[in-house]
């Protein structure tokens, strides 16, 4: 129990003193996971909308693959991205392994199916009759998709939250492709593992509280947007 209380006290102290190392870790996490979420949105929203509206042979198979991808284990993604980015790997010439860019790539791979899956469900929930009506009123295909997406925007905010929440809290991929390098690729979660390994449970608890507060603040802001009518 003492460890917990000490941790909470330490967390407050670390935040109050704006500890440079903690701020660097926090900033790296925000940057990396924010960028990965953005990429996932850019890929996932069009893909989800297309899957929801299109009908083609094998569609069920693709949708099943996306749904499986929503639960992709980060450590599996980490392993494959590491192998691809190795100096001896197919993308070795990029020399991005152990950089924030590598973590962004891995996290985008993790978040993209989540965004795709939620967009797919959201767009499918817009009644087909509504789409027919739009076309009947003379809307072009692009206009129709745009209006349907706007109609589905509330559940799609959930896609942002789920995608961001998923990647900022993952550890397996960040550790493997980032290497937990101080000042470069150390994120909130990898720092937590390191501090726990070093026996600095108070610092680890402080970082956990910081992570929870951050995810909460972001979800709160997005929920406020979502629920405003």
């Amino acid at each position: 129990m003492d460890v917990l209380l000490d941790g909470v006290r330490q967390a407050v102290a670390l935040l109050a003193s704006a500890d440079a190392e903690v701020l660097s870790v926090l900033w790296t996490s925000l940057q990396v996971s924010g960028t990965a979420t953005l990429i996932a949105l850019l890929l996932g929203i069009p893909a989800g909308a297309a899957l929801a509206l299109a009908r083609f042979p094998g569609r069920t198979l693709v949708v099943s693959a996306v749904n499986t991808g929503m639960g992709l284990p980060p450590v599996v993604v980490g392993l494959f991205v590491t192998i691809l980015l190795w100096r001896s790997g197919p993308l070795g010439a990029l020399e991005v392994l152990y950089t924030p860019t590598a973590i962004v790539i891995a996290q985008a791979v993790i978040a993209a199916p989540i965004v795709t899956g939620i967009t797919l469900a959201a767009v499918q929930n817009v009644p087909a009759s509504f789409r027919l009506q739009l076309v009947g009123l003379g809307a072009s295909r692009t206009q129709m998709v745009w209006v349907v997406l706007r109609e589905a925007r509330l559940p799609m905010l959930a896609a942002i939250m789920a995608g961001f929440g998923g990647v900022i809290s993952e550890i397996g991929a960040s550790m493997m492709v980032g290497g937990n390098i101080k000042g470069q690729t150390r994120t909130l979660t990898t720092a937590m593992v390191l501090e726990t390994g070093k026996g600095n449970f108070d610092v680890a608890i402080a970082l956990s509280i910081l992570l929870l507060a951050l995810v909460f603040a972001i979800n709160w802001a997005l929920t406020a947007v979502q629920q405003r009518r």
Partner: protein
Amino acid sequence: MRHSLALVLAVLLSLAGAASAQAPGAKTIILSTTTSTQDSGLLDVLVPLFEKQTGYSVKTISVGTGQALALAARGEADVTLAHAPALEKKYVAEGKMHHRRLVMYNDFLLIGPESDPAKIRGEKSVVAALKKIAETGSRFVSRGDKSGTHVLEQSLWKAAGLTPAAPWYIESGQGMGATLGIANDRQAYTLSDRATLLEFARRVDLKPMVEGDKLLLNIYSVMEVNPVNGPRVNTAGGKAFADWILTPETQQIIKTFGIDKYGQALFVPIAGKKDEGF
């Protein structure tokens, strides 16, 4: 509503801009090393100093010694700091690594619970102590992760002519810190390096049982990665780091490291010495 969404996107975009600004420099070295050098805090002192003095940027990948060497052998690193002499010599013999040079040492301790069920406290020979642990079936926690500590532990069991097995032999598969926690919790014996044990002294009440045996020396070496291992090995950078860690100035820093925090030094610098001296 629309403005809010635009705002969310704008925030994400600016984060993306900031992230891409951190492109790696041309003078980058990858150092693969063991968790103990990182956990002890030594690299946090040495690496920034090296970067400042030479202009290189170092990416330190802290993993078990087994993985550190395996990565280097694939050309995924430029220089390796490890502590498993037998394994290192194998890599050198295979031509994967070269210029293996001793850097520093500290020592391992066999530690265990106050109750000492195998009655090994004060035993001079670590091999004899391990035999007693096996005979009495006392719990022993192994790292089980191919780290330098694990490699040494395996060589000691071999020297004792034993193959440890469950149920009394527990493999944690984790770093030294986590393994100490498990050993403490299960009131088991384990093998720990002195630096990590000092770091955990506050939370672990296992007592030193065997120390000072020559077999318990923990010798760290630096090795450069043979450029034939992969297409992008930074040979000059790897050599620069290896040379630097062996300079008298750096060795002096190693010699005094830890005194302010623990009241005793964690490592003894030995640049220039040979294996035969130990």
